[in-house]
């Protein structure tokens, strides 16, 4: 098992390194000269040159990449070109805000999705199954901003349960932020929910058809025993992996949702950085996202292995 985790971990590091090359490369082919961007069009060539020298932009790309990566690893993420703030501070603060939002969303759609998916599979082709499948599917088609606007109209404008803007002050704790997190969390959840439902249903339905579930039933076990001990143990395997892969969706959804609700999260920061062509900020935020992505997959792999003895013993 340790060997397995180490191998997977090595894979994560490789992924992150490869993406760092891509991120670095991509930000260097972005149109626009950095020095011009900072100093403005009217600055003299001389001033720009000296700035380039200061920033190290005159060195070869490989050298620049090396020093960038080692800075990054040491925790020196640079200063934002547009706000002059410390990139690391901003990114980490926004990251923790997004994490709160993601957590809220995660705890809404994962249990609900699995629950609905299992019910749909257990009673497959019944009325309930059709309602669940069709209902959850309806939300995938809706873009986040539509869901967001609908939710705001109902729960904020009409019912006044939650605030319509989620702009929270820096340093707000989880529980004081919670009311502002419900609506954006729900927005993100609704799009991911159908995905989890569908995967859970498919995985569970497949396991329900296996010989060993027939064996369990013909052993006279109660429905609960059959479901929990024999079915879910096997059917949640693929679902776990799928949910982890869904983290990617979550981040995509966060960018839009955070903008609509004015929530100060990582997603909005990425958007902001790209709009401003703020290189250090773009690089740092992207790298953070890539790392999260890789770690989520690692977590999924480990969970999968823990639940599945055939992989564990390999």
């Amino acid at each position, binding site marked *: 098992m340790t060997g397995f985790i180490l191998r997977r971990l090595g894979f994560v590091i490789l992924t992150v390194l490869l993406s760092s090359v891509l991120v670095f490369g991509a930000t260097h082919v972005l149109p626009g000269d950095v020095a011009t961007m900072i100093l403005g069009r009217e600055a003299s060539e001389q001033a720009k040159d000296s700035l380039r020298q200061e920033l190290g932009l005159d060195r070869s790309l490989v050298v620049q990449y090396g020093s960038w990566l080692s800075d990054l690893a040491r925790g020196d993420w640079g200063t934002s070109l547009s706000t002059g703030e410390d990139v690391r501070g901003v990114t980490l603060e926004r990251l923790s805000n997004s994490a709160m939002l993601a957590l809220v969303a995660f705890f809404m759609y994962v249990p609900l999705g699995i629950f609905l998916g299992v019910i749909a599979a257990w009673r497959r082709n019944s009325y309930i199954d059709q309602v669940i499948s069709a209902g959850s599917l309806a939300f995938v088609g809706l873009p986040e901003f539509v869901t967001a606007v609908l939710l705001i109209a109902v729960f904020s404008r009409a019912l006044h349960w939650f605030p319509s803007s989620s702009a929270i002050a820096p340093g707000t704790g989880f529980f004081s932020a919670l009311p502002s997190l419900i609506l954006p969390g729900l927005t993100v959840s609704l799009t991911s929910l159908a995905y989890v439902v569908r995967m859970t249903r498919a995985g569970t339905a497949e396991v329900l058809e296996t010989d060993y579930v027939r*064996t369990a*039933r013909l052993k006279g076990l109660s429905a609960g025993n059959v479901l929990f001990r024999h079915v879910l143990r096997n059917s949640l395997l693929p679902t776990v992996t799928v949910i982890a892969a869904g983290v990617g969706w979550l981040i995509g959804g966060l960018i839009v949702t955070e903008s609509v609700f004015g929530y100060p999260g990582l997603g909005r920061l990425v958007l902001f950085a790209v709009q401003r062509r703020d290189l250090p900020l773009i690089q740092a935020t992207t790298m953070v996202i890539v790392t999260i992505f890789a770690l989520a997959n690692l977590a999924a792999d480990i969970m999968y292995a823990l639940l599945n003895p055939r992989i564990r013993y390999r």
Partner: protein
Amino acid sequence: MAAVPGHVTTPGRMGGPGQLVAPTFKTERLSVVYLTEQGPLRAVRGVSLSVAAGETMGVVGESGSGKTTLALGAIGYLPANGRVESGTSRLAGVDLAGRPRRELRHVWGSKVGLVSQNPQAALNPTLTIGRQMDEMGRRHLSLGRRAAREASLAMLERVAMPDPQAVASRYPHQLSGGMLQRCALAMALLTHPAVLILDEPTTGLDVTSQATILDLLDDLKAQFHTAILYITHNLGVVARVCDRIAVMYAGEISEEATAPDLFAQPLHPYTANLLRCVPRLGGQGTQERLATIPGSLPQMGDLPSGCVFAPRCPLAVEDCRAARPPLVEANAGRKTACLRWQILRSEEGRQTALQLDLRAAAPLTLSAVPRAPAGPPRVRDGSSSPPGTLVAMPQDLLTVEDAAKECPGPRPRSTVKAVDGTTLSVGAQQTFGLVGESGSGKTTLARIVAGLTRPTRGHVHLEGTPLGPSVSGRDPSVLRRLQMVFQSPETSLNPRQTAGQAVMRPLVLLAGLERREAGQRARELLEAVRLPASYFDRYPGELSGGEKQRVAIARAFAAGPDLVICDEPVSSLDVSVQGALMNLIGDLQDGAGTSYLFISHDLAAVQHLSHFIGVMYLGALMEMGDAARVLASPYHPYTEALLSAVPVPDPTSRDHRMRLRGSPPSSAETPSGCRFHPRCPRFQGDLCRDQAPPWRLSDGGVIARDAATPATADAAAAAAEHAICCHIPLHDLAALQEAGRR
């Protein structure tokens, strides 16, 4: 034990002498229907069966006969679209058919046990054997965690499991199929059920594992006094384990009798033909023709109004088609659903009912295809080659020299010797049969010959010309001369090619025919394998398994090959289809003078077709030689064990039992000395453990294999009429085997 709710009172445990008369389990006019989009399918119609405590009732039928549906319907377990349409199924007087699941949950597991085919799939991969077994005790015997485990371990002990404690902590994928099936049996018997349903429990296991499971069943029957319903397609197995047998055809019982009666004198034409479809081991002389049953099962949605067998029955008369013949009592204790069963009581009558397929296949004239002249038929004469010399054998069509294949093993840096230095030769117009358990390396060897697996060592020669190690590097003329037929036609035929196109391909590509000519020739070939002309334009999806295999055979013969490698060509097919295909394979050889490398785990099939036989174990040949000699004493101890493991379709045969120790081999580690020694029933101690045994030739020669060049020894063995690789001298082996039989 949990009480059965409602009006169900006593548990169905048998045992009182007075109860022996009443059957434990009894279905009466049971009909099961599946509601499908094409309308209701009546898969089982009006079946009445009864099994008494301590009795084993066999239900034999081919795929689609409804035997499994019958068993599952009888215990109230049907898929969502299945219903018991009418009839009853009583277990100790209580009707199970159509009862709600809630109530049946107290019957399943506690009074009805089920063991199904393929234990690897039937046990939960994520739970240990122990946990899966414990559930039975906890659920039905109200045992606590600890007591349940003790009961499980005790039960594993009773099924003769070597180390119950260790086995209980294993996951299913860590045990062999035979071991798992034993665990499944132990699990089903834990609650001492009144009825045990065994649904093809040994199908898919090796003969040797099958034999140990069947032996175990004999013991358990005596101990548990359970009523057993044994479902299978294998006639040898029913003859071996069942007291009474019901033959099912198209959802109905066609005949029911005690095992000896049924095999001695079948009273239904279907049974009579079925019994003659399978080749028998030790039948007088090989190459006799097998019976066939032309046609196929009637469609369940479109059954004939009269006898369901009438469209395929040689005895059918007008009356048969008028109304469904009832299952009538013919003699005391036996029933038949044939109107004309009286005819079958006489020998001539039986002969008229048998559909011996006497037509030989249309001779394959390969005028259009230039073909290498076949060498003179090889005469095997052991004396011609002095022992110990590597003789060139120009008269051999195919020679395999010291072929070996090593693959990466399960652990890092370990290797598995799938084939470990094998030398053999196949003469022109001869069939070389290769037998062995799964894991013996026979399929790998076939793939090396076909160029589908690249050997790590050794050579393949076709008439003395060396062949490249992989198909892609071989000359088209070689591809034309060497063809292969695989086990599963499902995967070897392209689903988007019609039968005609499949056969035309090699004609165009390898034989270089024009398309029109190729089309004409393809039609001839399809006719030679007895497929109607209309099949030319059919896609594989529209063909039955047997028909697909015929297309695959036609394709293999298209380019006029000299050698066809057949890897288990009939083993995935139904009994009634197997016979016809084996006749065909034999006929094509007679007509076209082709040689076969015929690979099978089925000794009877190998015997039926082969001139020469090689017995493989863990990657190496243990015995080879003339077919008749290999299958007669003296045998190699492994051959002897294989032969004694085959269940003979004759309940009166007193079988001579010799069982292998340990579990089937995994080639992860080749044992030292004689590679068979850990399981050999005639193990000779240190000698066998430490030294590679010599080849002992039938002419008295002894060739040491651990000498400098084992390949030379193997070549000499390959050239001999009969050779056995064992430390025991041949006359001693013969004496031992003679003693064992008495």
